């Protein structure tokens, strides 16, 4: 079966700084691939390249078998098929929760307002945010804001959801509610690429974990294999540092 997302020998440099050094990655439908690695290892850049927010220098990125990294591709049309959630939520502060969620469906996908709102309310209710429709983002806790941001990305029915350290900006007691939501999406069969530092969560949700080091995936495998019995020295050192911080 064609992978939903495929990255083939992708490279990317910012000036002299080679940030992605030949990445190969395939994400099958309904799979969750988790990216781990030290800060600066290129996780965000990889996700941004998949969403075409950055251009790769060389290699290919495919969505459902179609090359999307070609300069001739309409990037707006591609992004409509991909959902992305950021560390800092990036909610629109001047729009209330409901309008944040319905903006893309109504303006980009041409969904009638009533249908878009009904869908948004349904998602809000499912993820414990019923009654918050008319609140503004700054009235919500960080965990609530991030849940709204994920719902906003879901509301356009993306083929794949890219999550970039979505709990890193949260107070520790709010992390759980966001991870629970992502766990539910996994249960729904959502295809996801997730960058995170939450190892317990990675173990739970991932079909495959990729360890990034200086812009290259130097080791990947099933959670139990990679986390409990890492082969590469760098992976071992990274995991030790993470565990000693807890």
């Amino acid at each position, binding site marked *: 079966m064609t992978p939903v997302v495929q990255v083939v020998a992708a490279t990317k440099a910012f000036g002299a700084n080679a940030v992605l050094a030949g990445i190969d990655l395939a994400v099958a439908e309904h799979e969750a691939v988790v990216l781990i690695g030290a800060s600066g290892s290129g996780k965000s850049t990889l996700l941004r390249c998949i969403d075409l*927010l950055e251009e790769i220098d060389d290699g290919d990125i495919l969505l459902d078998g179609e090359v999307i990294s070609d300069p001739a591709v309409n990037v*707006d049309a591609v*992004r409509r098929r991909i959902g992305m959630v950021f560390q800092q939520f*990036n*909610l629109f502060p001047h729009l209330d929760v409901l309008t944040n969620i319905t*903006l893309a469906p109504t303006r980009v996908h041409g969904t009638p307002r009533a249908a878009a709102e009904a869908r948004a309310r349904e998602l809000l209710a499912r993820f414990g945010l019923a009654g918050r429709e008319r609140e503004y983002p700054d009235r919500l806790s960080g965990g609530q804001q991030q849940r709204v941001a994920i719902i906003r990305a879901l509301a356009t029915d993306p083929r794949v959801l890219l999550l970039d350290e979505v709990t890193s900006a949260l107070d520790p007691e709010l992390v759980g509610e966001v991870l629970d939501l992502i766990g539910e999406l996994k249960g729904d069969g959502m295809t996801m690429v997730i960058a995170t530092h939450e190892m317990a969560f990675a173990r739970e949700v991932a079909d495959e974990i990729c360890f990034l080091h200086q812009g290259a995936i130097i080791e990947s495998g099933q959670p139990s294999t990679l986390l409990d019995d890492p082969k590469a020295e760098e992976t071992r050192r990274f995991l030790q540092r993470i565990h000693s911080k807890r």
Partner: protein
Amino acid sequence: MGAAPDRQEVRRQARRSRARRDRATASAATLIVVAALVLAVVLAPGWPSVRQSFLSWDDLRRAFPDILTGFWLDVRMFLATEPIVLVLGLTIALVRVTRAPVLFPVRAAAIAFTDVFRGVPTILVIFGVGFGVPALGFSWLTNDEVILGCTALTLSYSAYVAEVFRAGIVSVHPSQRAGARALGLTAGQTTRFVVLPQAIRRVVPPLLNDFISLQKDVALVSILGPVEAYRQAQIYGSEYFNYTPLLGAAALYLCVTIPLTRITDRLQDRQLARRSTGGAA
């Protein structure tokens, strides 16, 4: 817990009496300063002559109706100019922030426009347009001094207002744009639905400041001939050898500019408060 209401009541009273004391101190200080200023003026050696030339009630009463008519012209010039300034300023700002290569010539023109008209004194722009345009001799161009004057003001103020809008647009954090683009919004939709609404909210106070300036600068159009409030007051002043009519004109400008100033300050305070509570992300 049971004794708490008592303590709270005592605290509330203490707070209230402190507020009363603060108000009394402020009022007393103001009174003393004002009294000192008035005394200084009244006791000045030139006071009797100043009083005669600046505070002649009779001269003011005779001149005032015409000054008021002139002021109505000021207000109309302001009302006609300001909306065009807003539209033109916003357009120039948008042109300057777009990166489309096709728009390069337009962008260069926009930069030249803002550089020139912000750099030249408004009064020179009014001279240039007011006397230069009719000198071209095109029969289809207007010779109406009011229209020419307002055109000059529009050029000058659009340059300022464009920079205000541009500052607002670039102050919206790039992550907002990324959030919108990630949702599939086009560059244009991102600007329209995400960036501009936030930018405009932020620049309302500085825009109102420019409104206030414009409401005063319409008087400059009088150098082309139209008799508005300032010019009318000046005419009466030289007729009566008395400055009181000018004071009357000044009072009229203040009637408009002070409320505008108060609104601006109020909005600015509110935004600062909002930002310090983390509201405007």
